């Protein structure tokens, strides 16, 4: 049991890091395609080895700590960012049960019954990585980036949480496994398109992705919270962003698009079902990542007041109304009136 879980943990670690590495490659390729360019194509065939070259470059750069920086916090910041990005994947059910060596292997590190709460808790800690990094740099641009990041995250977490609660209402459980299993017939997106839209927009804001990438907007804040960072510390920040993009794509797939469920599931069973389920889940994650990147290379950045306006005056009321309507419909169906 312990060995099984350890292998799964190590596998997950490698998969999320590998996925993050190749997402950088894919992002650059996609940006190039959208701009009628070719993109990286020198390292290996089609530039496939580009992430490795980037990683080696990051490690070989001088690791610089500014004299006036708070040394401890400066070092710990990227660590927190990466740590929180990685541990979110612990509660994600990656596929149906796998039968190997006469045992049922659950493809989930920890099936805790408050999965969604755990995810939201960890995501909220994620802002500390950015905040601490920005504060410790002792630099105005970094501080501004950190302030923006934290205010943005706090504002959007509300609407995000409320739209997640509608899903909880629908499935009657906080456990991600139960939520996925409840969608084997009809995916939640059919019942909750508005909640999905709100959740998706808020996820973009939580990820600091365009059009909500104010914390690191190059045009005003140099590099935002990671202005002073260099070498692999910077690499960790960037990596953490991609890892959390991977994880939040997985969470969106679970909450709204049926996780590892796919149409025509009932025709398969056993390991075939498990592998097909994993493949379906991976495809959904990939599509989400693609759309997030596609949006980044299409839409310009919000202004800060527009960002706050959208979060507090549009998304939050909309998600509350959506929650109210969902609650009323569920109450009506249960015969409370």
């Amino acid at each position: 049991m312990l060995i099984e879980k350890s292998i799964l943990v190590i596998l997950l670690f490698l998969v999320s890091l590998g996925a993050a590495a190749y997402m950088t490659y894919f992002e650059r390729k996609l940006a190039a395609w959208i701009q009628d360019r070719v993109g990286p194509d020198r390292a290996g065939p089609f530039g496939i080895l580009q992430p490795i070259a980037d990683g080696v470059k990051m490690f070989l750069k001088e690791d610089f700590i500014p004299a006036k920086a708070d040394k401890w916090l400066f070092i710990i910041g990227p660590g927190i960012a990466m740590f929180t990005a990685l541990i979110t994947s612990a509660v994600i059910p990656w596929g149906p049960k796998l039968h190997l060596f006469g045992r049922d292997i659950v493809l989930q590190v920890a099936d805790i019954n408050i999965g969604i709460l755990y995810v939201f808790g960890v995501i909220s800690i994620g802002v500390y990585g950015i905040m601490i990094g920005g504060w410790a740099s002792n630099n105005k641009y970094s501080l501004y980036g950190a302030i923006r990041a934290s205010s943005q995250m706090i504002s959007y977490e509300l609407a995000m949480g409320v739209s997640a609660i509608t899903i909880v209402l629908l499935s009657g459980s906080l456990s991600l496994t139960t939520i996925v299993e409840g969608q084997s017939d009809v995916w939640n997106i059919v019942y909750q398109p508005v909640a999905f839209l709100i959740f998706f927009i808020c996820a973009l804001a939580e990820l600091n992705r365009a059009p909500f990438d104010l914390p690191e907007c190059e045009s005003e804040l140099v590099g935002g919270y990671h202005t002073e960072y260099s070498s692999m510390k910077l690499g960790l920040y960037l990596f953490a962003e991609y890892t959390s993009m991977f994880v939040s794509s997985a969470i969106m797939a679970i909450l709204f698009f049926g996780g590892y469920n796919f149409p025509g599931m009932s025709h398969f069973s056993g390991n075939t079902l498990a592998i097909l389920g994993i493949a379906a889940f991976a495809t959904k994650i990939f599509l989400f990542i693609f759309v997030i990147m596609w949006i980044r290379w299409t839409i310009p950045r919000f202004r800060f007041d527009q960002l706050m306006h959208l979060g507090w005056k549009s998304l939050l009321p909309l998600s509350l109304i959506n929650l109210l309507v969902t609650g009323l419909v569920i109450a009506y169906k249960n015969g409370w009136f």
Partner: protein
Amino acid sequence: MESLTNRKKVVSDKPMTLWEKIYLPAIISGMITTMRHMFRKRKTIKYPEETREFAPVYRGQHVLKRDEQGRENCTACGLCAVACPAEAITMTSAERERGEEHLYREEKYAATYEINMLRCIFCGLCEEACPKEAVFLTDRLVPTYFERDNFTYGKDKLVEAIDQRIDITKRQHTGKRTQL
């Protein structure tokens, strides 16, 4: 005031309609545009493997031509130096001695002829000024150096070798545009 062009537009700042305030339709139309670009032909020229083709009238490094019998055309009249807006050309003239008829076409020739490639703006006015069809700009590039002195090209670099003639037929068609 009457407008000079028909491109005049009245700027309006009327408030956004609800449809515009939702943003989503505009965002989706933008995303369709970028999606269309994903499948366009790439504009990139992969440099070391392919090089961009020069225009037929490209103006690069100069050449001092010889005639069919291998004699230098230049008579050091100095018209190119006068025409040069960047004052990049200097020369000294000398008289042809007896027995040098196979080297220089006319009685006077350029003993030294120098073009400072850092001053030169490659406008081609020297070529236009030359009455003897001696100086031409070619499609060769002037390489880079670390020292300034290397950019002053003397006759050793400018005069074409007898066995390695430089093709300037493209330049001779300029203005006529018959071969395009």
